[in-house]
């Protein structure tokens, strides 16, 4: 897993450079961007990340950038910084998905605390996304028959009932069930039910 990364987006060169220097001094990897367009075009990271973003910028402002990220389905945590925070602006920022809204000049410890919290939050999301991708790949490896068996088994049906629903012998139903458990990496039925929930697979019918 790659090291956590902090994106710094501010059109003011002095602010951008100083924040990058602060993050570097704290041992954090960071990349600076002068405009929302440059950030949206270039940023991509497979590990945990967060964005420290100025609110007031020419062309794309902070809220525009947040809207673009939301449209892309990104869950990147955003820490907004503003030179003159008003209550309506704070409300807008929070609605746009900001995890923090800080007023310049932000104290160094305050900024680093916000960044660390955002990276922890994103690390959790990254782990969740990885697990989901793994489950999807496992589910894709099931045969159509095994997939059908899975929807029956997660409803808590007995082997006999599964066999009847599939129109096969009870021994054959057991074999399908064992293959499903193996391929999905499920050690128990509750495990399999939990995976199905994550994959949004609903039970065919319940007992």
């Amino acid at each position, binding site marked *: 897993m790659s090291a956590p990364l902090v994106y710094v987006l501010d059109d003011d060169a002095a602010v951008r450079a*100083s924040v990058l220097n602060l993050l570097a001094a704290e041992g954090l990897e960071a990349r600076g961007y002068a405009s929302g367009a440059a950030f949206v075009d270039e940023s991509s990271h497979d590990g945990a990340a967060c964005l420290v973003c100025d609110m007031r910028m020419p062309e794309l402002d902070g809220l525009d950038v947040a809207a673009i990220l939301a449209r892309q389905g990104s869950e990147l945590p955003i820490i907004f910084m503003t030179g003159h925070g008003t209550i309506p602006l704070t409300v807008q920022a929070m609605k746009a998905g900001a995890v923090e809204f800080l007023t310049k000049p932000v104290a160094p410890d305050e*900024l680093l605390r916000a960044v660390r919290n955002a990276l922890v939050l994103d690390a959790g999301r990254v782990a969740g996304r990885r697990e989901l991708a793994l489950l999807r790949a496992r589910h894709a490896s099931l045969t159509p028959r095994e997939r059908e068996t899975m929807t029956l088994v997660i409803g808590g049906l007995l082997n006999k009932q599964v066999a009847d629903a599939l129109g096969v012998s009870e021994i054959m139903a057991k074999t399908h069930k064992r293959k499903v458990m193996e391929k999905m990496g499920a050690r128990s039925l509750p495990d399999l039910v939990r995976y199905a929930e994550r994959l949004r697979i609903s039970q065919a019918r319940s007992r």
Partner: protein
Amino acid sequence: MLQAVTAAIAHDLNQPLMAISASAGAALRRLRCDPPELDAVEALLHDIVAQSQRAGCTVAAWQACGQQGQDLSADALHAAVQDVLAAHAARPPGVAR
């Protein structure tokens, strides 16, 4: 109008203050290293000097506007500040070290 003027002043002054705050935070951390990273600290202190000058120029530009009894709209003030800053060419700090 006063609200727009104070917002413009807040913005123009908070930018260099933010840079000063972050540079000082970085310098403190470089100092606490063992051994202290003095070259980095020196560069960061230069950045702080430059940004202090930038803030001073901003204040001077407003004062000049006020004394000459000029247009006191937020846009005019902001433009005057940008002119002074451009003339002074406040040195931006170097890239991240």
